[in-house]
């Protein structure tokens, strides 16, 4: 059924499931195509969950290594991305739990917002635009901190739901739990986020969804 070489084959047109089968069969380029297709999204999920680029890079590599090793056993019973998200969330949650059990050197835990974005420069803090971006940067820092304060499963649920637009069902499969459990996780996560962020979101602050600043590039 599978051939190990297909002269002229274009991996770009293969489905994810086919690429997994080709990877298992040793077809050159198949796994690379899978990586190219999905690494951005996996990185996004991982980065939002762990909060710094260095750890995210390590974890993304680890996740794709697991994908590679699993290729011989992979059964396309569901969407590949559903399975991929499960591998990714398992890896992230295990990593977060390990990290939280270890005494951590301060340099390894990035304070929210500080590692990958430079400190904002305030040219004229009294100008209304200056004040506005001060508040926005502060709020951004607090949003990141609030997400990182969530327990692992709540964090993943929010990341998958809010930022990746996954359905309850897909999140349930990624987290190996029921849809009801997902709703509960999201409910608790939202309460935690609300309690944490509301002090920074008073009605009189400059930030609002309709007239907020442009998101940074």
């Amino acid at each position: 059924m599978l051939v190990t070489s297909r002269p002229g084959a274009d991996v770009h047109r293969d489905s994810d499931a086919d690429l997994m089968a080709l990877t298992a069969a040793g077809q050159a380029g198949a796994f690379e195509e899978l990586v190219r297709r999905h690494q951005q999204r996996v990185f996004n999920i991982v980065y939002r969950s762990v909060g710094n680029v260095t750890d995210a890079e390590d974890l993304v590599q680890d996740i794709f290594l697991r994908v590679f090793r699993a290729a011989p056993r992979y059964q396309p019973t569901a969407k590949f991305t559903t399975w991929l998200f499960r591998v990714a969330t398992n890896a992230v949650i295990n990593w977060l739990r390990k990290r939280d059990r270890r005494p951590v050197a301060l340099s390894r835990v990035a304070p929210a917002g500080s590692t990958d974005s430079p400190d904002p420069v305030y040219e004229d803090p009294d100008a209304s635009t200056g004040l506005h971006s001060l508040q926005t940067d502060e709020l951004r820092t607090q949003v990141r901190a609030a997400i990182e304060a969530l327990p692992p499963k709540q964090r993943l649920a929010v990341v998958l739901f809010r930022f990746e637009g996954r359905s309850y069902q897909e999140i349930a499969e990624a987290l190996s739990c029921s849809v009801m459990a997902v709703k509960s996780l999201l409910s608790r996560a939202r309460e935690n986020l609300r309690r944490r962020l509301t002090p920074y979101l008073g009605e009189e602050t400059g930030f609002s969804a309709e007239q907020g600043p442009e998101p940074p590039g």
Partner: protein
Amino acid sequence: MMPVQCEDIRSRLWDLVDGALDESARAEMEAHLASCEACRRALAERRRVWDALDLDTVPAAPDLTQRILNRAMSAPRRLIVGSWIRWAGAAAAVALLAVGLTLLLRPAPDAPPAPVIAELPAPYIETELVSVEAVTDIELLMYGDLIEAPIETLVEKEIPISGI
């Protein structure tokens, strides 16, 4: 103390934020909100929190393709021996000891299984462990269920490998 109806409305405000309510439920909530400032404020607060998450940005992702490929092609195979030791029984333990692994075995048969992880170089696994016939599911041993198992059942433990 919050009126009963407000409590009920509050518990469903996030559904409203999500746009997850059907026609009649939404109408019911909007009717209440029209006359209840406290609940309107509660809704506005939740919307602001949810919208604020848009501020969380992801830095430009590095292209990890080459590093991932390098790792995949050169990484040693990992042998993951978990609860299968329990049903594979003593025979499997003996067979694995024969290939020079130092295993930590659970002392009590009714204790929850402790997964044991060892790293062996790839060629070693293919030539030696394939001959272990006592274990009925070699493929499970080779790749393990680490990838798909429920998280709570996994405990990783690095053990020293002797005699290789």
